[in-house]
């Protein structure tokens, strides 16, 4: 991109758009910027290389070389570990570049895992995967801070998620809750906060803005112990929390693609509302209110989200009423008041989805954002598709609904396109 821009400079000078002096300054600026920035590509390849070598070693050792004696195999188990430690030790001692830190840290991460796995293999120690993962993650956690390594922090989150899934999901793990997962994530949060503080707009921070909420979404279900129906409330509260975090100016003022919280929050809320737009949802999820673990988690998430929302209002970050920011609360009230009447909540949910779709379309047109506009239309379409499966609605009504939504797509996009063209021509005249 920069080199393309620099190539254009002689032409701009030739046509007297900029002076020769300005052109030289621009060139100097980009050259100095390139020299100062670390070679990101080299770091990425270094990390990928270490990742592949590390995983490869695990697989090679997993082959189980039974020609070797137990002693030889035990020694072999330590070779990658000691090698990784020597490289990491050297990197820290000599304070080498980020590329060194990221690559050596990644290699050591997998070396630790492979050595524990191999010892378990040699001595036939069964142990479940979750306890193995926990030992592995904890042994490598200090490296995140010692090497200030983003890759290790990401690996930590990915493997902590794996641990939580392995511990909490599955028929055999009924009644087990991976509370330690929360501790594991809390331990990596200082690194994330530092990234948010120091490099809020960098790509690596954006990746964390996506994988952290994703990890919570994947694992939240493992905190459900028997009272599955309250799982819906838990997830709705979590999506509400994410949406409201994503709406804080810190995340909301940046680019949308950097805001995983907002996107997950919005998509999740809409998806769950669509799920709840069927009558059977309210028939099946009728339950007596007991203070279960699931309910406690839901209440905690609801209170936390409400605190963030109130704080946002007090700081005037939010003006007016945005339905999707309150969706979690509306859902919670309906959920708690569901004492047998299924018609009222079903109708309400359908109206809310319609309102959500219309509000999103309006935001899209106000902002001249085709993406948001079509997302709003997609919400309405999804609602119509869901109603398509409700057989008790007349075919004519359903057909008309589809046709009108289809026309809506054309008309709104066309109107906005015209508006945009008008705006561009007005700007050109000015």
């Amino acid at each position, binding site marked *: 991109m920069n080199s393309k821009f620099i190539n254009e400079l002689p032409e701009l000078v030739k046509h007297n758009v900029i002076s020769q002096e300005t052109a030289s300054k621009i060139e100097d600026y980009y050259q100095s910027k390139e020299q100062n920035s670390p070679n990101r590509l080299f770091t990425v390849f270094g990390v990928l290389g270490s990742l592949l070598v590390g995983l490869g070693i695990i697989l090679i050792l997993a082959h*189980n070389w039974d020609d070797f004696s137990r002693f030889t195999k035990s020694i072999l188990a330590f070779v990658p570990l000691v090698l990784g*430690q020597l490289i990491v030790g050297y990197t820290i001692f000599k304070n080498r570049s980020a590329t060194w830190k990221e690559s050596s840290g990644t290699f050591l991460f997998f070396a630790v895992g492979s050595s524990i796995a191999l010892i378990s293999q040699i001595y036939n120690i069964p142990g479940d995967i979750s306890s193995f993962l926990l030992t592995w993650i904890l042994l490598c956690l200090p490296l995140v801070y*010692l090497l200030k390594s983003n890759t290790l922090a990401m690996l930590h989150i990915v493997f902590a998620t794996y641990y939580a899934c392995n511990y909490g999901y599955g028929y055999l793990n009924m009644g087990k809750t991976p509370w330690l997962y929360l501790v594991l994530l809390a331990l990596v949060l200082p690194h994330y906060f530092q990234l948010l503080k120091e490099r809020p707009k960098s790509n690596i921070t954006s990746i964390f803005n996506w994988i952290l909420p994703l990890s919570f979404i994947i694992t939240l279900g493992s905190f459900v112990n028997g009272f599955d129906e309250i799982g819906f409330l838990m997830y709705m509260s979590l999506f509400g929390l994410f949406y409201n975090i994503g709406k804080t100016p810190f995340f909301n003022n940046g680019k949308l693609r950097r805001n995983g919280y907002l996107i997950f929050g919005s998509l999740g809320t809409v998806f769950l509302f669509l799920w709840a737009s069927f009558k059977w949802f309210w028939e099946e999820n009728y339950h007596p209110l007991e203070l279960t673990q699931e309910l406690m988690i839901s209440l905690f998430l609801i209170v936390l989200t409400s605190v963030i929302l109130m704080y946002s209002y007090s700081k005037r970050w939010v003006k007016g009423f945005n339905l999707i920011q309150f969706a979690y609360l509306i859902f919670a009230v309906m959920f708690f008041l569901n004492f047998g009447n299924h018609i009222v909540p079903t109708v309400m949910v359908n109206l809310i989805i319609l309102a959500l779709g219309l509000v999103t379309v309006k935001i899209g047109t106000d902002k001249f954002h085709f993406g948001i506009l079509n997302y709003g239309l997609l919400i309405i379409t999804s609602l119509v598709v869901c109603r398509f499966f409700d057989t008790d609605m007349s075919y004519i009504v359903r057909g008309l609904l589809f046709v009108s939504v289809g026309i809506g797509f054309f008309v709104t996009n066309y109107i906005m396109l015209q508006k945009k063209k008008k705006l561009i021509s007005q700007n050109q005249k000015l």
Partner: protein
Amino acid sequence: MKPLHLFSIFVLVAIAQLFIPSQMILGQKKILSDGTPYKFITQPIDPSDPFKGKYIRLDFEISSLATNDSTWNRQEDVFVVIENDDYGFARVKEVTRQKPEGKDFVEAKVSWYNAYDKELNLSFPFDEFYMNENKAYDAEVAHRDAQRDSIKNNTYALVFIKDGEAVLDNVFINEIPIADFVE
């Protein structure tokens, strides 16, 4: 923080990283050298682990036993007192919730209690025997074939037991180590 300080902390981390696998080895070695060996009659089947490789899961004959006591809960930790039968194979003497004194025992988990058959199913902590990836499936087949040739099950796991802990040393078919048998 200065590189030297960081390095000092790293040395501690590295020691911990070395300590855990070393401790695992020493613990297992002690049981293998000082423990009492028992032969557990078993049936192998062949699954795999993403990190540790292929293994044969051992389905022990004594993991299900008849009892009228129906108070056992799933996943409950229990102590299983082991003794040898007349043929020199391990058998369950008693299952208890209290730690036994002066007897060889292993810690196990209750899988489930079958109220209809009045049968208690146990899960022993030494039911995975890791093998070369090319031999694990062959081992399962070899056991099946060996079964066909004789009336009694002739596959057993040699397990060393000490103070409630157990280490699976090897699996034998017709007194030959399973890895050699399949070659």
